[in-house]
């Protein structure tokens, strides 16, 4: 059962980076403004808990990431499929930032096991723009992404 997921944005200052954790739905109710105060130090944004982004949210998000100085290192980690989809569909979704790691929806054709697997973008780039082999945790057979791999990994090629 999907429950209504409130938007949260939490900023924690770590040793040499400002860490931002975002969860929920990015829409007209999402308060993204605290991110615009960042930029003095490198920023790492964890997006694992983002469930969905609507069209207003896309615009608001792009507006916010554009305000982060281009000189500030900006990294996105643990991006779930809804975020990866936006990166692939909408120009400038990550601003000048780099997508470091992401989840891909994997499925086993043999035993129908399904899971979201975390991958490093660099590992995909090193693997010729493809996902590294992922054995099924249940039967050991190779899993495949439940999406068009070429389309899902468009951001890897664009960033390359």
């Amino acid at each position, binding site marked *: *059962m*999907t429950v*209504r997921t409130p938007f949260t944005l939490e900023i924690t200052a770590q040793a040499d980076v400002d860490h931002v954790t975002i969860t929920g739905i990015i*829409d*007209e*109710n999402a308060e993204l403004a605290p991110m615009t105060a960042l930029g003095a130090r490198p920023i790492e944004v964890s997006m694992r808990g983002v*469930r*969905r982004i*609507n*069209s*207003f949210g*896309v*615009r608001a998000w*792009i507006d916010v990431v554009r305000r982060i100085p281009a000189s500030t290192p900006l990294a996105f980690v643990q991006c779930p*499929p*809804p975020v990866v989809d936006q990166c692939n*569909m*909408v*120009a*400038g979704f990550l601003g000048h930032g780099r997508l470091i790691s992401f989840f891909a*929806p994997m*499925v086993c054709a043999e035993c129908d096991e*399904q899971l979201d697997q975390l991958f490093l973008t660099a590992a995909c780039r090193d693997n010729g723009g493809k996902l590294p082999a992922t054995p099924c945790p249940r039967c050991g057979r190779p899993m*495949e*992404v*439940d*999406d*068009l791999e070429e*389309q899902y990994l468009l951001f890897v090629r664009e960033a390359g």
Partner: protein
Amino acid sequence: MRGKRILFFDPDPRARRVAERALAATGSEVRCAADSDEVITAMDGGGWDLMMLSYDPPLRDDPRWTERLGVFEERWPRTKLVLHSTAPTEDNLPLMATRPFLRNLIAKNDEPLEPDELIITAEKLLRHDLFGLGKYLLWGVEPVRIEIRDSRKKLDYLAEVAAYANALGCNERVVELVETVADELITNAIYNAPRTADGEPKYARRSRREPVELTDAEVGQLEFACDGDYIAIAQIDPFGALTQDTVVSYLNRCLVKGPEQLSEASGGAGIGLYRVFQSLSKFVINVEPGHRTEVICLIDLRLTMKRFRQQAKSFHIFIQDAA
């Protein structure tokens, strides 16, 4: 429909068999052409109420067809045209931008063609009976209806749609597609559809953060239903202001990844429409100009996400002729 004549063309004999049975079942007289020469000759013979033609090679690349498509509206003003194609719908949208009489594209995927879609499309065009989500679902399916009145209640509306999809056993990504479609349709009904007495957009320029409560005369409706194969989400507004030009131009602009995707010219509706389009299998827009619009989105539940992404999407705009 009795007394009507339909010309169907597809070089694939399986598609012709499906179409012949399906369209003949409507009571119309059906002629199935098997090659370009035959269909061009039949077109030139005239007298067709509806042409349903494959827009794949060989016809697409045939200069005789290109020439006829260029003068279609003048030469066959009473004939409706429906194209079907294996190409991604995005490839054919530019054609719809320059050929306003072309409003119906049926996606042809692995299976020859869906007889239901042929029948529904033909009957809607020939009977001029356009509206109703029920046409796309099995008999007996009862849609859930929600009144769309207040932007502050959007999360409540969305929760109902999501609960419905969850109750059907849809997986997380399908529920996300359903919510994406419903979210954009609700926003459209509240902010983009309403018109002033002069026909000008009433709330389109307002920030989506600014609450809007629609008056009784402006209230829209959200409907959703499932027949096992498709989950359908529809939005109805009492304005009928949506035009083919708007829909096609917004989609064409957003399909190309770049700065135009977020253009202010659309008042925010462009990227929303694009997100809806990317989240569905069949897109149907019924418009009675100045009176009502019905946007129907159908998501094929039988497909894995991979197959869903691979499949072309059907795209229909039906416009009620003035009485």
